[in-house]
């Protein structure tokens, strides 16, 4: 049974950079519990912009609806309009996990400290971190600093950190960009397992369609059109 968690309707983000204008249009996007969502596209198509919006860090230019369904309906649109930064930060903290391209680990913390940070910011101790680390085969590097890890190890730590505080949604921005094909496959498998086991939504942005195709429940792409020299329009499509 599919439970709706995040819903966007007619969301538009307008960005200007160096005289060029970029517009991303999301007609409809629904994220259900336990879904593995792949967002595929070349660079410059608006993947990061979409991620910013989903991560609640970028305010859309206009929208019809933007709801987050938890035990109650949370109207993100209203929060943005009322500039409730604190509530947004709290939502981010509690319900969102992030895996960035190169992991987004803090260089001055050890792997273990990085892993504990998310739980700690949310004010609870996670006793399962070590168990999870074992499962992801990173328990032997817990006391190392990120700079001494390989790309694959770093991404696994990042994934573990993203799920350590049991978020509803994990946003992963090209988590496989810095690793070889075999490791990329492992990472995606990990994500898939987590999504299914915990009912977590995984939104994975990637340019490698083939890699995610076997796992993705839903795949989205972009329709990019250059309207003029200075205006680029892009809209999200279900593939």
């Amino acid at each position, binding site marked *: 049974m599919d439970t709706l968690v995040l819903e966007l309707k007619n969301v538009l983000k307008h960005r200007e950079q160096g005289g060029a204008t970029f517009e991303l249009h999301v007609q409809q996007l629904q994220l259900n519990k336990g879904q593995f969502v792949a967002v595929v596209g070349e660079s410059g198509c608006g993947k*990061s912009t979409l*991620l*910013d919006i989903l*991560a609640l*860090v*970028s305010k859309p230019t206009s929208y019809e609806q933007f709801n987050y369904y938890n035990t109650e309906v949370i109207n993100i649109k209203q929060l943005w309009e009322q500039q409730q*930064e*604190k509530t947004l*930060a*709290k939502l*981010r*903290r*509690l319900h969102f996990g*992030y895996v*960035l*391209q*190169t992991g*987004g*680990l*803090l*260089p*001055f*913390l050890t792997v273990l*400290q990085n892993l504990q*940070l*998310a739980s*700690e*910011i*949310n004010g609870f101790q996670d006793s399962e971190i070590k168990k999870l680390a074992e499962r992801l085969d990173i328990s032997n590097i817990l006391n190392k*600093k990120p700079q001494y890890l390989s790309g694959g190890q770093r991404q696994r730590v990042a994934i573990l950190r993203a799920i350590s505080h049991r978020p509803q949604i994990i946003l992963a*921005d090209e988590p496989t960009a810095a690793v070889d094909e075999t490791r990329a496959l492992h990472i995606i498998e990990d994500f898939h397992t987590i999504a299914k086991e915990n009912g977590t939504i995984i939104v994975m942005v990637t340019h490698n369609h083939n890699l995610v195709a076997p796992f993705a429940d839903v795949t989205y792409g972009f329709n990019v059109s250059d309207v003029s020299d200075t205006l680029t329009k892009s809209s999200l499509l279900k593939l």
Partner: protein
Amino acid sequence: MKLPIITRLAILDLWHEWILTLCMVLAIAAILTPLLVLLGLKYGTIQTMHERLMEDPVNREIRPTRTLNLTSKWFKQLEQRDDIEFIIPTVLRGSSVIRVSTPKKRQLVDLVPTHQGDPLILNNDGIIPNKNECVLSSAAAEELGVKTGDIIDTEVTRTRNKHKESVQVKLKIVAILNSQADSLAKIYAPFEFVNDVEAYKEGRAVFERNWPGGKVLPPLSYDGLWILLAQDLTSIDEINLTVGTGLTDIKRSYPDEFKQQFFIASPDNYAIYKLSATGNPITVSSINAVKNKLRGKAAIILPFVNNVAITTYNQLKVIGLSLSKSQTDILGLPALPWGKFDINSNFASQSQALLPELDKKFPTLTLTSEVLGGKIKFPVNNQGLSFNKNIIVPIELIGILRTGQDSKIIFDQAQKTFLSAKTNYHGFRLYAKSIDDVPNLYSHFISQDIDVITQIQEIEKLKVLNKGLTRIFWLIAIIGIAGGMAALIASLYASVERKKRDVGVLRLMGLSCLQVFRFPIYQAIIIVILSNMFAITGYIVISSTINIMFIDRVGEKICTLPYTYFLLIFVITIIISIFSSLLAAWKTTAIEPAEAIREE
């Protein structure tokens, strides 16, 4: 207990970049250490100089520049002041020289009076001499070739009636002062001895020591005069009585008032005047001046005093009256055995009394009076019956006792006479409680028209030096602090700039703006705490080295700081570090969580 998350992150980040952190810590310590040493040197030297100024009573000494005429009362008043540690009258220079004979030498030495609490003696290894003892300055001891415990023969000489006279006294040396006290040869002896020496030199007898010489009788003094006249004075005459007579006020009075004073009635139709002087008592010369001005007017002049308390048995009142036979006739009184007012009266004529009827059986009677420095007792002879309920004595006796209010008088039992104890002093030696009291005392004496010598210039010099050094210190400190701040600002700002992404990640993970705002502030505080620790260690090493280097020459610590200074510097540097980190802190708040996501 776990540290708050931001504090921990700040520490871990500094630890991660420990080389940069250490460099920054050392850079700030390199500014703080010399500042601490400089401050220590300033504090130490000023402190040392201040202590020396404080310790050496010479710097607290106040001496008059010229010969003065000061009463015991004046000294009593000054002794009440709490900014004076010690004051003693001094004698005239010419009256204070005695000849000291030792087996080796005969020499004239200056005699200086001292008594209990004299800091010049106590702070220079001396003890206060008692009777027949003395203390020598190191120069005197050296010149005379004597040591503590020796007994020296001293000779006080004078020329009286063209004859050379002298008396001898043996004094035991109880201490020799260190050379800091006085560079000249001086003998410090008890005040009473020096006073006697002065009296002898001035030709007076000192009965206690059996030194021969003249007697000094106390003069008579009064608070004013009553005048009884058969006819009124013209207003010009009235005013005339206050010109050149030492009396300042004249007032027409009434029989009642007169009776209150003397307990006798004034003759009918007589005009009564009361003449008085404000402040100072009047002397015999005032009485003579008034007498002269009233010549031919058959005036009865009655000197009076206000507050001379005489006590005897039965709480009887003692009234002073001296009247000639014709005057008592006018007043309707029986003649007085001692007759009219006599300025040259002696104690034999003064010590008479008329007693109330019931007391006629006493041949002599002892009276007691309060005078300066205590009570005085003397006998009077019963001369018969008083004409009222009071004891009547010659007004001359009362005049002596009035003088005794302001200057010391004694009653000499052996000679049966009042004697003037030494009344006036020609100078003083004074020590202020602290050097900071000197300027105040200086202006006090200047306002009294007493020119004094003080070490005020030395004290001022120290203050100026302190001010100058403080300015130099602040100049250097400001430059140093500015440099340190600049370095700290640059370092923290660059650090935030470098860690934009990390800060973004922290924001993305849910840390608030205010939390990341504290990140560089905490780092600045940590850096400065470490810098302080390095700087204090450095200061301890350098200051100990300086102090060891100079201890032989200076004797005291010339580089030293009280603990409170370290605490103060610690707090100040932390406040400065917080200010320095504000730019970086503000910069962190501008970092959006989105910046972590968008790396390119």
